[in-house]
């Protein structure tokens, strides 16, 4: 039994909300392991977020170095493995973001650790529940290695609150870096003023039935009216109508907003896997027999061309009357 090393992503001077979900798991795991939560912040600008991180745990370790300007699994994994060993960790955890999913199994390999990916629940010190088969079942796994690596599903863990008090911040050296010949080339990222798909309260998603990217504009109007994030089915992202990282589903983003609109989406199991944890689901589809209506709380059998503009004007009316 030992401590919990929580790898936390940050943006500027603040932890990301995805990291707060990781910390709520980390606290539960620390109780189960009789240890403490240690936050690790790694990267070129890591120290900027240390003040914010210190509000959430008794100990924060910063590994900051210009050589870490771009995230690479090859450089991060050995640092995380060393921090785990040096700090008596029996659990190493990250959120199942693209970074967490990329680096954590590599860390597990370096530590000879058993790993549970994308977990939804902690059930005792070394027992974890995780969705399998596109969320059609939950599997409970028990891991018997001395150190365990975990990634947590953001939508299944409430963001942690501040702990009260300020933790100590220390630094650790980056150590020797061996990239095994890998290098960062460039990133093509879209900046959006909308909330992150991962923690938006409302998501508006469109599917193949939207027919082209131009038509998504009307969904974006609906999204902006509701302060929502945009989502899409695989058919829409593959067809290049919208960016790939809008994809909701088993192999895309897993979301659980208060309100989810599925517009012109049929409801394939792989899509449902990513959104059926939503509190209220609205489906708009012209075909009443589509499986999406089986998970929808409210279904409207109508063409989106008619339904969505009307929806926008009706919501505006309701908002104006308040």
């Amino acid at each position, binding site marked *: 039994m030992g401590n919990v090393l929580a790898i936390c992503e940050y943006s500027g001077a603040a932890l990301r909300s995805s990291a707060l979900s990781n910390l709520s798991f980390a606290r539960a795991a620390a109780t189960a392991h009789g240890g403490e939560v240690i936050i690790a912040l790694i990267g070129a600008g890591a120290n900027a977020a240390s003040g914010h991180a210190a509000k959430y745990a008794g100990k924060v370790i910063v590994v900051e170095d210009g050589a870490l300007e771009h995230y690479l699994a090859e450089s991060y994994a050995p640092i995380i493995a060393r921090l785990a060993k040096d700090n008596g960790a029996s659990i190493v955890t990250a959120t199942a973001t693209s970074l967490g999913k990329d680096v954590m199994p590599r860390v597990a390999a370096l530590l000879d650790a058993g790993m549970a990916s*994308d977990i939804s629940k902690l059930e005792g010190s070394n027992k974890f529940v995780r969705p399998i088969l596109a969320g059609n*079942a939950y599997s409970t796994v028990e*891991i018997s290695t001395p150190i365990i690596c975990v990634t947590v599903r953001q939508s299944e863990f409430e963001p942690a609150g501040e702990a009260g008090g300020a933790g100590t911040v220390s630094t650790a050296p980056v150590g020797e870096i061996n990239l*095994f*010949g890998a290098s960062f080339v460039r990133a093509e990222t879209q900046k959006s003023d909308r909330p992150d798909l991962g923690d938006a309260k409302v998501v508006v998603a469109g599917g193949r039935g939207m027919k082209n990217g131009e038509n998504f504009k009307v969904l974006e109007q609906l999204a902006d009216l509701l302060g929502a994030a945009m989502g899409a089915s695989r058919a829409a992202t593959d067809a290049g109508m919208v960016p790939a990282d809008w994809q909701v589903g088993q192999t895309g983003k897993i979301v659980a907003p208060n309100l989810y609109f599925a517009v012109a989406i049929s409801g394939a199991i792989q899509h449902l896997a990513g959104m059926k944890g939503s*509190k209220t689901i609205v489906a708009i589809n012209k075909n009443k027999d589509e499986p999406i*209506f089986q998970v929808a709380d409210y279904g409207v059998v109508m063409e989106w061309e008619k339904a969505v503009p009307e*929806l926008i004007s009706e919501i505006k009316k309701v908002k104006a009357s308040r």
Partner: protein
Amino acid sequence: MKILVPVKRVPDPTQKTKIKDNAIDLTGASWIVNTFDEYAVETALRLLENGESNTRTGGEVVTVTLGPDDAAKELRTTLAMGADRAIHVVTDDKDIDSLAVVKVLQAIIEAEKPDLVLMGKQAVDGDANQVGQMLAGKLGWPQATFAATIEKVADGFVVGREVDGGVEYKKVPSPAIVTVDLRIVAGHSVKNGVTPATFAYQGEGARLPSLKGIMAAKKKPLDSKKIADFGVGAPAIREVGVTLPPARAAGQIVADIPTLVAKLANDAKAI
């Protein structure tokens, strides 16, 4: 160029999930090649051919699976698609965990010495998304996960990775581990310097085996090995129970948009 592709057979995801004796009931299940692995085989073939003239330019594609006797069928499917040779490590699925899969694949990779290992980003039964990264860590190889594009360059590969917020391009030398995402099978995703840049692959996924391919696959080498020869211990990760998620309460079809908005505002209090 020699490319090794680990593939897993998975239960056909369109089947209804059933539980028996605290485990997934797979009696009578039908099986498929994990879709992401099928895409990895497709990617390997695209790297080694002129797509426009539909001709192989050399190289070798070797597929590997760990699974029961029956899994030979899915290996044959990869041979029928165009892989040249297959290795079957026979084991009961419940005797292995991801650590064992990694250990066996590592031994095979060290013996085969491929220039590239291409694999799925995740097996759609366990949805773990971890074997590729673990393998890279164990081998001390570079990794490029979630590949939506791959380009062969003089000294390795440039991979377009699907990450939160967009696409990140990463260069890895050979040998490397590359795990593929769905969009790797889009028309222009694989660039090998041979297929003309103007050529786009058609269709939604991987190629279907042709009749000729199926006949040829019967004669291609399929090497069967015993798991016992790899020194794999008892699993450290054990499944101790399985449950079905609670069903969602039945919803309702509403007649028109004003009714929907009223219900969202008053009943669900969602807007």
